[in-house]
């Protein structure tokens, strides 16, 4: 259900990928979802944020990717990634970097703020440059926060509003995508505690909650 399907549908780039990238992608595909996902604590989550040169996936491009790992209740800046897509030398270099980023993510559930937006940029990019069709397990904070912290806000809100509601310092000026990941990671840590108290104990349950909230709040 959470697997990745490689689409060959005539994507020329995929066939022309260098050998090391192809090998790494095959490796990555062969990886299985960690079977230690019995609790949030044991699940390796990856918080993800993107940089784009505009808001519309149809017209604008993905220019950067940032990620940070949340595992065993700890956010470790040392376990972070940043990929600047404006800096790549050529198509091969881009493919290599994207693959390295993918290796870091592994098969972890992805914690994001607005999965539709993040996915709208990320998935086509992976398809185009790696010939991959990624089907991530989104943990979407934009919908989970109002679902689990309805006492604070029943409706989705901008990220900074959530940070302020929780007494976290949104910082001055624009946050870098990596700083954004850390801010999301903090919210996520609080969210997990709340989820536990409501009996939402596993990543699967959390994703269900995320989907349900998105559906419920969108259709009202």
């Amino acid at each position: 259900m959470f697997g990745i399907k490689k689409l060959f549908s005539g994507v020329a780039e995929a066939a022309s990928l260098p050998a090391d990238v192809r090998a790494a992608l095959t490796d990555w595909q062969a990886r299985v979802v960690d079977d230690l996902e019995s609790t949030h604590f044991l699940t390796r989550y990856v918080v993800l944020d993107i940089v784009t040169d505009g808001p519309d996936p149809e017209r604008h491009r993905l220019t950067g990717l940032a990620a940070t790992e949340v595992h065993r209740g700890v956010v470790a800046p040392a376990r972070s990634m940043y990929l600047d897509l404006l800096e790549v030398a050529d198509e091969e270099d881009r493919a290599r970097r994207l693959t390295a980023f993918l290796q870091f993510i592994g098969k972890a559930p992805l914690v994001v703020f607005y999965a539709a937006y993040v996915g709208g940029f990320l998935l086509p990019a992976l398809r185009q440059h790696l010939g991959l069709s990624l089907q991530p397990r989104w943990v979407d904070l934009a919908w989970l926060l109002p679902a689990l912290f309805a006492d604070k806000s029943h409706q989705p809100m901008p990220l900074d509003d959530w940070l302020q509601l929780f007494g976290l310092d949104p910082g001055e000026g624009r946050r870098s995508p990596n700083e954004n990941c850390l801010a999301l990671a903090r919210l996520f840590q609080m969210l997990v505690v709340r989820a536990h108290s409501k009996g939402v104990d596993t990543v699967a349950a959390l994703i269900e909650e995320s989907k349900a909230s998105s559906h419920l709040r969108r259709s009202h």
Partner: protein
Amino acid sequence: MEKIGAMLQQDGQRRAAASAVAFLSRHAPFNKMDPESLQWFAEKAQIVFYPAGNLIVGADSGTVRYFYLIESGKVQARQAGEVVVTEYSILSHGPGESFPIGAVTAGRPSTNDYTALEDTFCYQLPAEDYLTLMAKSPEFNLFCTQYIASLLDQSRRQLQAQFAQKASEQQTLNSPLAGIGTRNPLAVLPETPLRDAFQAMSQANVGSVVVVDGEQKPMGIFTRSDLLDRVVLAELPLTTAIREAMSPSPTSLNEHATAYDAMLAMAKEGIRHVLITDHAGALSGIVSERDLFALQRVGLRQIRQTIEAAPDVDALKTAAADVRQLSFNMLAQGIGAEQLTQFISALNDALTRRVLQLNLERHDFSGIDWCWLAFGSEGRDEQTFSTDQDNGIVFQVPPGEDQAELKKRLLAFALEVNKSLDQIGFPLCKGDIMASNPQWCLTLDEWRNQFTEWIRVPEPVALLNASIFFDFRPLYGKVELADSMRRHLLHQAQAMPVFLQAMARNALDVAPPLGKIRDFLTDLEADAPGKIDLKKYGSRIFVDVARIYALAAGVHSTNTLQRLRLSAQKMNIRGDEINAVLDGLNFIQFLRLQHQYLNGEPGRQGDNLIDPEKLNELDRRILKESFRQARKIQSRLKLDYQVNH
């Protein structure tokens, strides 16, 4: 591929650390650390969330694995184990504060249980990284090993900066030498005959000439005071080259050195001039002792001279104002509370002595042994800017003299002295603890009996009196009388443990204003809501405890810091432990002085009421730590004297 992955991760790690670096650079001691160490901390530290009520690290958690720094929220520390779990052992930490420093440094389990009081985010640095950071960063090392001493130092620097503005209308000892003293002083080459050099000095009307080489680098100095010894008495012909008569290798400092450096050099080397050189080492100026004193406007020496030569009380009034001005300057220059209070006391002593001398011109007590005593803060050598009179007289009746008659004469004299002191700025004592009160103008035997009585029957009034009068110090007259009082007092007090226990109970009546949840209790004074009386709930706690230990250990000093130091030695209290206590007291005294200076109005007594909310974060934290030290010595006293409240 792996290499690229590592590169991306390095980039990510560096960027992710930015928010932690921003946080760190707002908090001591991290704000003083070099960027490299900060980045290192930020990259290694993990971010952890503790919901309210969760234990973060406790005595049962085994060897401490992390150093914790609170990012947001509140953490309660509670002493673990069977040791008296009273309100004494609970306190709370806020953002920017870290724990458990001692345990993680020593690699042992924590003695406290740390629990999140609110939802809390902490940075946690693994113990091995913590130790590496200590080795890497001298600032961090200092912070961890001298927890409060280092904070104190930073606070003092902040204060200096704060005062810089207030003192800007006058140059201070922190000014660079480039702007002080004489520019382009008279200089001659070493081969110049003495006659030519003297003529040049005479024409320029200066007292000194610098001898320089071809590149204007100083080789020597010749001053008017050298003339007698080196030329006249040495019978040197005036055709001699000046190099034969000059003082070679004169002391010089760079233009960027401060006036303070020059003062230090003069004091150390016993010289009156320091040469100033530019970046190339060429002579650019000269600064004299007089320049430096002019800089302070009021110099220590002048004040002493003015006091000692004052013809009447009016002249002393000016000198007393100068003492205050000089003390303010010293405070602004970051002189510590201990030195400053002693300094104020020393000059106030000089003022009082001169007042006594002036009044003695109209009273003759020749052939009579008597001594003027100082009590209270004056007796302890720890006066602040606002201080009233506490004094008395001890005397002996010579054979054939009538005691009542003599006392009458002494009282008349004392009344004039008390009035004079009031005139020069030491207000009359509201409680009438003054030498002109017949109750406190006593013979040696009367004083001894009085002391014995207070010690034998330690009722409330006796204990209150003990806290004032047992801190006596002779100021003028026959010092031996005071010594005899002291020996009597120590002997009596040591023979009556019950008295010391009563004093201990009394000393424990007031606790430092630390809250269980809030940092400080600010509602203890009904007429000053939101404020803390730093004397009543701060310094007095230390003073009271020190007095008891001094009496118990037979320490003759009256100064609180001395009392604590000396009795700690006798009672085998660890050095670093007592130093932390002394730092705590010093900081509270420092805040009192600062408050009295910044809030005091001329001619009015400053108070000791501070609003902790108005302190900067650093000062607030040190104050909290200082109160903890007060609580610590109180706990010790409680234990030592088995006081159960």
